[in-house]
């Protein structure tokens, strides 16, 4: 059995939203509402869901870029949720993040060599300049950038290359876990595959774990060992990638899968859509009971009164639904 690196236990992130009126109490926006899962060493956990489901908040809460309201984040056996800033800083060597917008996440006034070297400079201030430079060049080569570009600025690079720079910066400390927050969503189709392949190659070589956040089901399916489906801050289904793709059991996962277009005219034109109506309800005012019930084709009275718990419905297959398939 491989070791568990990260454990998230009943994590909640609630944002207070001020209401109109002088003495009105702020309402809690439950962005992440009681989420529990583990990430094992060398594994990719895909987190999928629509905009507003809390997937990015979850990623940031793990790194404590956003403070959680309740629950625990346990990193290698140690609860880091309440760790003082100085001690947390030491952990950041092991926990890194890659952002969605590759250009916006790079400082335009720094050369890419300095950007990639910055984590080294801040965690190993005594490292000699030459050694730092050598490490940066080596990492640039690993992510597919020419080392002679080391003195260029971010604006001289295309979106795909900027994402490579972001990956090099995250990888330079050889972290144990990287949160990838929509790393390929802003890239062109032909470039997307390059970056997905790069992340997989790096994982094979360095053995880090990835939490891969995306709304794109086909990309998630391709990179993940296990997939977690989020809806309005709650886990709907959590399973091994193959079994989730082959036989999704939660009505929401089924609807997501059926809505994702497949580049094949024959399949797409004859497809029986399991369409769900309307949009996601406001997270400020989530439905009672099961949060998905307002759009669920199978909803019954029980769904409005009782919150379904995430239960094992098969080997490594967890579903939060009163009436799963």
């Amino acid at each position: 059995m491989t070791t568990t690196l990260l454990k998230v236990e009943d994590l909640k992130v609630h944002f207070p939203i001020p209401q109109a009126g002088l003495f009105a109490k702020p309402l809690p926006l439950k962005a992440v509402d009681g989420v529990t899962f583990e990430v094992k060493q060398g594994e990719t956990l895909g987190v999928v869901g629509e905009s507003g489901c809390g997937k990015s908040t979850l990623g940031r809460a793990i790194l404590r870029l956003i403070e959680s309201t309740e629950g625990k984040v346990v990193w290698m056996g140690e609860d880091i949720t309440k760790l003082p800033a100085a001690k947390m800083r030491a952990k950041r060597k092991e926990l890194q993040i890659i952002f969605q917008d590759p250009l916006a996440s790079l400082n335009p006034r720094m050369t890419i060599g300095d950007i990639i070297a910055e984590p080294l400079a801040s965690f190993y201030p005594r490292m000699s300049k030459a050694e730092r430079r050598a490490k940066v060049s080596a990492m640039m080569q690993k992510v597919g950038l020419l080392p002679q570009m080391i003195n260029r600025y971010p604006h001289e690079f295309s979106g795909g290359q900027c994402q490579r720079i972001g990956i090099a910066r995250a990888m330079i400390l050889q972290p144990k876990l990287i949160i990838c927050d929509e790393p390929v969503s802003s890239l062109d189709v032909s470039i997307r595959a390059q970056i997905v392949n790069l992340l997989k190659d790096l994982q094979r070589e360095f053995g880090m774990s990835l939490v891969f956040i995306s709304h794109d089901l086909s990309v998630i399916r391709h990179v993940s060992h296990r997939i977690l489906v989020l809806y309005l801050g709650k886990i709907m289904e959590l399973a091994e990638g193959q079994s989730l793709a082959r036989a999704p059991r939660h009505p929401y996962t089924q609807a997501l899968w059926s809505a994702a277009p497949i580049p094949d005219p024959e399949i797409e034109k004859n497809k029986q859509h399991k369409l769900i109506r309307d949009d996601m309800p406001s997270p400020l005012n989530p439905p009672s009971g099961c949060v998905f019930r307002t759009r669920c084709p199978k909803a019954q009275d029980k769904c409005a009164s009782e919150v379904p718990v995430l239960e094992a419905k098969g080997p490594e297959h967890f579903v939060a639904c009163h009436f799963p398939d």
Partner: protein
Amino acid sequence: MAQSKFRVPTAREGLPVLGIENLNVRFSTPEGEVEAVSNLSFDIHKGECLGIVGESGSGKSQTFMAVMGLLAKNGKASGKANFHDVDLLSMNRDQLNKVRGNRMAMIFQDPMTSLTPHLRISRQLTEVLMIHKGMGEQKARKRALEALDMVRIPDAKSRIDMYPHEFSGGMRQRVMIAMAILCEPELLIADEPTTALDVTVQAQVLEVLADLKTRLGTSIVLITHDLGIVAGLCDRVMVMYAGSFCEQGGVRDIFYDPQHPYTRGLLRSVPRLDQPESERLEAVPGQPPNLQRLPKGCTFQERCTFKFDRCVAERPLLREIAPGRTKSCHLKGFDPSGNAVQG
């Protein structure tokens, strides 16, 4: 630049709804002129859905911005864009305004910025009808309600008097489509209509578009980078790269028998939900070209795995390879096992 000899042929007889001839779009920038679209010719017929596929910078949006007369100030279009028998490119603004929003309409990617935030939806919808059709307010409101029903906005009677911010993203995009179809246009240009939407909402919006095509016989141009939605909705597909067509043909031909290396690369680089997982994706190597420094030969040569001498020396022209199919590539084609055959 050499003129392409072939007009992209069409399957249907009769006068096209829109006929584009040798369209060029140039932008003057501080670094010099950029040719965003070069020498495009194609037709769109009644009731047809045409998919335009390409990556950012391929010219797919600018082609239709030029047709609609919506180019940025530094942009200039030349050639012909015949809407039935009148050339849109030679029209002045007043003449264009009689056609735009009336007989042809456009939907944009971002539904939030395409609606006026401080006007009720009712006002924005009825205005279109009052201007183009000379309707009275009552009649226009009735027609607007019908359009909202058609795009399946629930409870349209009360929703019509709301402001844009009171709608969600998917609803707003449906309001945009309702506005576009108010005057029952013959041609609807949808520029990445679902890119900002979630998959479940995307499926709903695509259903509305499919419905328009079958019920009203509207010709639809779908501009997108997503091959999946093209597969479901379109009859014909054109693949663009660096401002010109690589390949054009029926939707089945393009997906099942792509003949241009770029089309093949695109189709292979997307992971598919319905297929067993593969270890690696077959990515198209390299970066999209800089339009200001296009090579002399084929624009795709730097990323092409089948490049040979002729590709460097000479830019391939669009040529017919089968009835209704054209491509611009020096390769003769691909044999059934996927090997390239040189001409």
